[in-house]
């Protein structure tokens, strides 16, 4: 992997991690309302996949959507502003964390319905096919969503129509409190691709280089008219399901364990330095830069005006 890509991947992951840390703080300060779901631990997936995407490619995201949004090049300030319920937020404070969208960058939105984005990405891919472009659509969703009917129906439709869509299943080992091991009687979710006659790949979602490579293959194939792929990324979420989750379904050891056993950022740091792609100092500089960028974004967001009152016109496009 070339240096530019490696450092960009690192930077995106770092941004995501830092974003989650900062929003956790803001939540703790009672500045954020509702619920937030941290993507910490899963950064390599969004970063590795979206590195291949253009602004005119589409993604659909989930309730755990900050990472996808950042990797799809959203503006951090507008994201924080949305969490803070500001008029300057992506959704003018109407949507909040679970509905951040940035259609200017092809992000068709976080989604509060588990599995809800899967058919939508399928439809975006249909648009590409209809228009004859080489755009692709990526649907991010969790292991839990892979047990929804929408998963099944969408993958079959995409397969028979050979749509340019990549289904990225983020297996972070849990659906809320339900461990993947109990929710499935299979070990490898990627095997489900065979039910639809599409390629399925399982990849170590901790390793951004591996995600990058596998996603690249799938996306290249989709752009070339080769149809859909199911890409399952094995991962782990560092935090609870949502801010404040008592995590009664996990042991203390497990909760602390990730710090030593599962951290895509530490990993990336290690191989970037080991393989001499870049120096520790360069990475530190990125870290500092990201931290500063984040503070500027928070400050900008906090300074914004509150969400404006609702108007009758904003619900319908043609009134």
């Amino acid at each position: 992997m070339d240096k530019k890509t490696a450092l960009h991947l690192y930077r995106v992951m770092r941004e995501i991690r830092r974003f989650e840390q900062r929003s956790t703080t803001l939540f703790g300060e009672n500045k954020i309302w509702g619920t937030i779901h941290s993507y910490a631990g899963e950064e390599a997936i969004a970063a590795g996949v979206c590195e291949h995407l253009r602004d005119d490619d589409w993604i659909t995201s989930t309730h755990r959507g900050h990472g996808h949004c950042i990797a799809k090049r959203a503006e951090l300030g507008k994201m924080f502003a949305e969490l803070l319920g500001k008029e300057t937020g992506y959704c003018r404070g109407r949507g909040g964390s679970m509905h951040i969208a940035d259609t200017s960058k092809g992000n068709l939105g976080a989604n509060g319905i588990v599995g809800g984005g899967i058919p939508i990405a399928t439809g975006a891919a249909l648009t590409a096919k209809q228009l004859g472009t080489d755009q692709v659509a990526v649907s991010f969703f969790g292991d839990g969503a892979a047990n929804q009917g929408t998963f099944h129906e969408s993958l079959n439709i995409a397969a028979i129509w050979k749509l340019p869509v990549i289904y990225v299943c983020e297996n972070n080992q849990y659906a809320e409190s339900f461990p993947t091991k109990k929710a499935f009687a299979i070990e490898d979710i990627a095997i489900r691709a065979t039910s639809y006659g599409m390629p399925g790949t399982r990849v170590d979602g901790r390793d951004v280089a591996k995600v990058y490579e596998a996603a690249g293959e799938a996306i290249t194939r989709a752009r070339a008219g080769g149809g859909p792929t199911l890409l399952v990324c094995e991962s782990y979420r560092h935090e609870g399901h949502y801010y404040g989750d008592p995590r009664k379904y996990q042991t203390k050891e497990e909760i602390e364990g990730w710090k030593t056993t599962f951290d895509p950022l530490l990993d990336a740091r290690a191989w970037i330095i080991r393989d001499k792609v870049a120096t520790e100092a360069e990475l530190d500089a990125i870290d500092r830069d990201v931290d500063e960028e984040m503070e500027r974004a928070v400050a900008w967001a906090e300074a914004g005006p509150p969400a404006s009152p609702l108007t009758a016109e904003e619900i319908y496009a043609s009134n």
Partner: protein
Amino acid sequence: MPATSGTAPTTSSPTAAPSAAAVQKEMFYAEALNDALRIEMERDPRVIVLGEDIAEHGGAFQVTAGLLAEFGPMRIMQTPISEIGLVGTAVGAALTGMRPVAELMYIDFSGLAIDQIVNQAAQNRFMFGGQARVPLVVRTQGGSGRGNAAQHSKSLEAWFTHVAGLKVVMPSTPADAKGLLASAIRDDDPIMFIEHKLLYRTKGLVPTGEHLVPLGKADIKRAGTDVTIVTWSREVLFALEAAATLAEEGISAEVVDVRSLVPLDKATILASVCKTRRCLVVHEAIKRGGYGGEIAALVAEEAFDDLDAPPRRLAGAETPIPYAQPLELGVVPQAADIVRAARELVRG
């Protein structure tokens, strides 16, 4: 040209009523819908149709007959039996620049897809702070009268009226069917377009060529002075039949065809009721929780002092639709039931 986001420019909303000089042709309701689809598909390559059995078979009620031959399988996209998959795919296509028409064969199956309609299509624009539009038409059909029993005969329009962000249209005549479907396809919002299985083979004069009926406008299908019958879909036909009978008895009934349940043309309804001073709302769906409650409540709230009698609802019995023919006919309002209810309302 890459299609980017849902914010692409779009066509303007329909406004013009058909000119009086328009050429008319007798058509079945199903043909009129087919005509609208054909014209809109010719006019705009972004219009595509998705659904089950819509290709060679031409749709369960022949509304898409011939369109596969004319437009090919990329525009008449037959789907597997995957209601939420097909509707969700249409939502995604709509969000990214297409103008899909998704067919749900029976409104009874709409529950399988309702999550994508309600949580996604209807709300995307709002939730995204205006960043999206979802020009999606979900065509479906409801109603009883064909011996299809409880899972193929429901009238569920009320569910969809109760969703912010959706529009709900239910034409009763071939001309309205054509004009409203064309307007719905050109509209930038998600629309439930609900036909009736027993209207497909009814005939009427329909303007040929482009024909638009604006959404949100009720139509007075018969003028009268003694009682207003507010209704929609197939019950309009029964109401007209009833009005003819009532006229023989010296009761002059005005029949207001709501046509578009959302947005609702309150002005036309209230003006009529204030004139006749009596209001009978009729629908095929069961009464409890039906849209008749909305309209009767509206009339009670806004025209209370203009009423000479309580607003009345006549609606389907509170039962799943039974199979046996005599039972089935007994559970939804027929013309004779409307006559009786209107007479009671007028004569006291």
